[in-house]
């Protein structure tokens, strides 16, 4: 494995990435992930999140385009990029009948740069039962093992494929705590795929919305919370054109809209003389649901 590449390089770069399956096409995807950023890849099941991560981890060869990690080309036949990548998927290839500890010991022998000290400290911190065979571990503990295995060699890019999917609320909160602790130091660039929208609030700096294999929208989490609002008002006009509105419900003179550009919508409402205007903030997961529902329209409007 080669030495680490300079910090200035993007942590990951997807250029025109396309992967085709019967009845599904991912991409073309262009995406850059800067070092120290936590980016959530949000989308419903079948949106192409796992395929994107598999291509980035070098487990799949794209049909077109490519991926770079810290400037190194990602391909199954190359190894330069692997030093910088830690991957947590649903399946991680562990020896199921070996204990978690034995699997980690095997990884210590397999992966250059592995630090037993780092892995043990992390395993200790997240209370991973090292003496239990992997096939006897709960789903939450298997995820914890995958996290330790992904971080043991000190990668700078962490790829997390739905790490909280299928976990009960308590374990989910525990896993999120672990991920939050890992990411808060800002040393890792993280690409985190999820369809559990409430995870976003906790971890992500930026959000990328995928739907049907296409990138619908990329935005900052705070930017998203600032611009989207639920607005209710009273207006006698039956047909009303409002800027930035993605959903509009009306019962007689009572209107309720969801706007992706609250400022523009409120300005227009003032012009129209709307009464009893009430503005409510939306949570990031509520906004995410709207974006995924509206999908292409939002993407077009955002340009």
């Amino acid at each position, binding site marked *: 494995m080669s030495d680490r590449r300079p910090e200035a390089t993007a942590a990951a770069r997807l250029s025109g990435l396309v992967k085709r399956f*019967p009845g599904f096409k991912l991409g073309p995807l262009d995406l850059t992930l800067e070092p120290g950023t936590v980016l959530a890849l949000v989308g419903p099941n079948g949106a192409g999140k796992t395929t994107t991560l598999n291509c980035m981890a070098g487990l799949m060869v794209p049909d077109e385009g490519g991926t770079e990690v810290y400037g190194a080309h990602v391909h199954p036949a190359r190894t330069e990029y692997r030093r910088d990548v830690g*991957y947590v998927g649903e399946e991680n*290839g562990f020896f199921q009948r070996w204990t978690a500890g034995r699997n980690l010991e095997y990884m210590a022998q397999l992966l250059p740069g592995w630090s037993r000290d780092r892995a043990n400290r992390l395993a200790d911190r997240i209370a991973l039962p090292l003496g239990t065979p992997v096939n006897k571990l709960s789903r939450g503990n298997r995820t914890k093992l995958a996290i330790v295995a992904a971080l043991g060699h000190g990668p700078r890019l962490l790829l997390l494929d739905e790490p909280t999917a299928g976990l009960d609320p308590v374990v989910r909160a525990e896993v999120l705590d672990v991920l939050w602790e890992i990411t808060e130091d800002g040393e890792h660039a993280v690409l985190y795929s999820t369809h559990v929208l409430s995870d976003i609030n906790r971890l992500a700096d930026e959000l990328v919305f995928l739907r049907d294999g296409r990138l619908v929208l990329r935005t900052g989490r705070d930017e998203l919370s600032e611009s989207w609002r639920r607005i209710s008002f009273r207006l006698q006009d039956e047909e009303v054109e409002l800027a930035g509105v993605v959903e509009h419900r009306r019962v007689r003179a009572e209107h309720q809209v969801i706007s992706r550009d609250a400022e523009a919508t409120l300005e227009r409402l003032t012009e129209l003389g709307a009464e009893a205007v009430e503005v409510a903030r939306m949570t990031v997961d509520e906004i995410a649901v709207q974006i995924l529902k509206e999908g292409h329209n939002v993407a077009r409007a955002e340009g």
Partner: protein
Amino acid sequence: MWHALKAELIYFRPWLLGGLGIAAFVSTLLTVLARVVDGADGVPGFLAGMFPIIAGMVVAFIAQSYRSEEHRARLLMAGPMVPRQLAGVMVLLPICLVGLGALAGGLFVGAIALLTGPLEAATLPTLGVFAVQFLAYAQMGPLAQEATAARNQRRSRAAVAGWTVFVGAVMFLVASQFILGSAYGVLGQLMTVVAAMVVSAVLYQGRTDFTR
């Protein structure tokens, strides 16, 4: 690659030891029965040694199934292994397991010879012939797996090539039963083993998806 192969052998050691234990029990039972039944001619020496080889072949199939189910490539590709080396592990693991079965079979035959007197001269060569044949069967697993993977990954030419070699190899293995004792039969089976290994390894390296 050798490190990964060694780890797989250690991982599947309980299955192999279990299989060899069952094989030893069956072989001993047959040998004892043949001795105690009046008028029986006795069990041919090679038959007693054949069961451990069969055990090795069965464990090779089990290993292939488990490795696939446990998505081992995902783990190994986190490290410095490339598809060529993963393919090496895939085709060498059955050789090791059947080889260890053959070794156990030879030792078992030797033990019987110590207890019951000298065996026929042809016993060990016959055992060798069976070992090659079972090794050829064991290599059909990875070959079928890679031909299927090629089809699933829309690599049509690779899939056709894989299935053609698979069908040809199986037909040859069936036909070779009639010339098993001849040098041509053994040579043909050895060539089948090598062809299956090479084609499986080439198909594996051409994979576009290592997640399964």
